[in-house]
């Protein structure tokens, strides 16, 4: 290996110009994939879901979903999937990340429920297509908002969202059984014919509170905060752990992150020295 490495260095010396050129090319190729930090200046709110912590408590999923749907008067039509409205829900891990492939994952991870909600994408396709600006990304903190009084119900945003985060009110949500005896002071219900989704609890943010789903987590299973603040909890989590996002290749810049594994557990599989060796070999 050292032989070939020396050979490589010699070659590199002889063709410094070419190497410099190719370095420039590879740097450009990485950039064009669109994995830059958030474009939103000021605050960039984001949510981190810690799948490892959730793995310990299956009952928590229902509590989190209930907390959100109760706080936002989301109609519940029972098993009627056709008319379903949901802001946050679970899907098996493989469905949530269906564009990845997980053939040989650990048994205990298979089919593991994973929370899904609007990603409040930093480059949201849903707001781009809306013909009335009834949905838009808030400039000051990146929250993707909805105006239920302006929405014309064309559903173009639902078509454009790559994550299935949006629901249309096919029928009158106020007729749903769970909203029948609703407290009039509760979160306003929507009318049939408009689209709705998670709004990162903008009403709670305005009062300086954290989102209802985050508040429903007893042990920091979800964290919420400003990505542009280096001292924030979400930044700390993303620095210290390996987190993934749904379909990052589409360039939407989703701002909901999923901590899947502790990098240290990966290290146990492949010791640091070996990783280094492999890298060296790669250059030769």
């Amino acid at each position, binding site marked *: 290996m050292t032989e070939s490495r020396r050979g490589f260095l010699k070659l590199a010396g002889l063709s410094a110009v070419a190497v410099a050129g190719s370095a420039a090319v590879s740097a450009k190729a990485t950039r064009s994939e669109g994995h830059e930090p958030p474009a939103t200046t000021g605050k960039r709110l984001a949510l981190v879901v810690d799948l490892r912590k959730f793995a310990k408590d299956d009952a928590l999923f229902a509590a989190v979903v209930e907390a959100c749907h109760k706080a936002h008067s989301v109609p519940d039509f029972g098993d009627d*999937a*056709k*008319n*379903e*409205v949901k802001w946050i829900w679970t*899907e098996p891990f493989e*469905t*949530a990340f*269906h*564009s990845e492939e997980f053939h040989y994952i650990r048994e205990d991870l298979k089919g593991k429920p994973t929370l899904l909600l609007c990603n409040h994408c930093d480059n949201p*396709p849903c707001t*781009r*297509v*809306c*013909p*009335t*600006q*009834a949905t838009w990304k808030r400039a000051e903190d990146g929250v993707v908002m909805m105006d239920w009084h*302006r*929405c*014309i*119900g*064309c*559903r*173009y945003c*639902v*078509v*454009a*969202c*790559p*994550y*299935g985060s949006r*629901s*249309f*009110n*096919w*029928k*009158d949500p106020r007729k749903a059984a769970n909203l029948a005896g609703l407290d009039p002071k509760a979160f306003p219900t929507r009318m*049939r*014919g*408009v*689209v709705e989704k998670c709004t990162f609890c903008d009403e709670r943010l305005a009062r300086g509170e954290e989102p209802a789903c985050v508040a429903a987590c007893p042990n920091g299973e979800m964290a919420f905060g400003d990505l542009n603040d280096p001292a924030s909890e979400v930044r700390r989590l993303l620095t210290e752990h390996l987190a993934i996002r749904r379909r990052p290749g*589409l*360039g*939407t810049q989703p701002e909901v992150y999923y901590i899947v594994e502790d990098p240290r557990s990966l290290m146990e599989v492949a010791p640091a020295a070996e990783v280094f060796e492999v890298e060296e070999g790669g250059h030769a």
Partner: protein
Amino acid sequence: MLEKALSGSKYYWSWIFGLLVVIAVGVACWFWQYTVGLTITGLSRDVVWGFYIAQFTFLVGVAASAVMVVLPYYLHNFKAFGKMTILGEFLAISAVIMCMLFIFVDMGMPNRILNVFLYPTPHSMMFWDTVALGGYLVLNIIISHFTLAAERREEPPPRWLKPVILLSIPWAVSIHTVTAFLYAGLAARPFWLTAILAPRFLASAFAAGPALLILLAFFVRRISSFDAGQQAIDTLAKIVTYAMTINVFFVLMEVFTAVYSDIPEHLTHFQFLFTGIEGESTLVPWMWTSSLLAIVALVVLINPKTRGNHSWLLFGCVAVVASLWIDKGLGMVIAGFVPNTLGQVVHYSPTAPELLISLSIYAIGLLVITGLYKIALEVRGQLRKATTN
């Protein structure tokens, strides 16, 4: 000039009456939909656009196809299309009206439709589509009105009309291009994410529209002495042939890209259409029928002997329209949603009220076209059978 549409024969009135009955049923269904919501359709959280939007897409093509008679007549001075142009423009007007109605019935909040203009949003393709369609309707109304009015006075059309007509040519291309952009610019929907969508839309439109026009011309010739002319029909038949060939070529290119690249998220949509996935095969018989009809149509149309024979040509045109209607009015839109963005296979089929509302919009289109043709025919004093009855 409208009074011309209101005097006619017994047959004429029973035809109108029949249309009105179909329209009444659809309007009743629409009121029902308006009160309880779009839940009465087959649409769901996963398949949010369906039969309505698919009909809209198909009819935008029919509207755009008027350019296939306008362009040769005005740009190349192809005199044989003289009588055909007015038929083409009327077909366009009626198709655009149907398009607008299909969008209207698909909206969750139709009473807020003006929001599109109150908050104009240039980054939305739907905004541009609204502008393009509205403009196209106005253009065609102006053009056909002033051409006919001039003809009635036995004068040449006013000089200022020529630039308006020329403007309608690129405008026609734009309505279908922008309609394709509604679909083709979405990262979420790999089935539509193809640069060939707009060219393919245009090719299929320029086949289906003129084919419909040929059928209409045959029909008008039967009920009146108005004859669009043999040369016009022959030329239109050639246009249909070329456009259909190009369309089939484009479809094959799409199939090649999906199948050979073997990228699952592109391929699954074609599998849904042609083989079915996970037992979901609602559209499979339709798509094979469409493919078969396309092949039969090409055989009939490419062979100059069959193309020159009226019965064969009629058959060919029906095959073209049916094949493309299945392709665009069923397959194209629905396949974009199956599987959904989470890779789940979901089911959609239109419900009875959804179909009845759609049928009534087609009836409105036929009513508009009947009225317009009647005006045109009577202005030209050529209505034969309808008046002697």
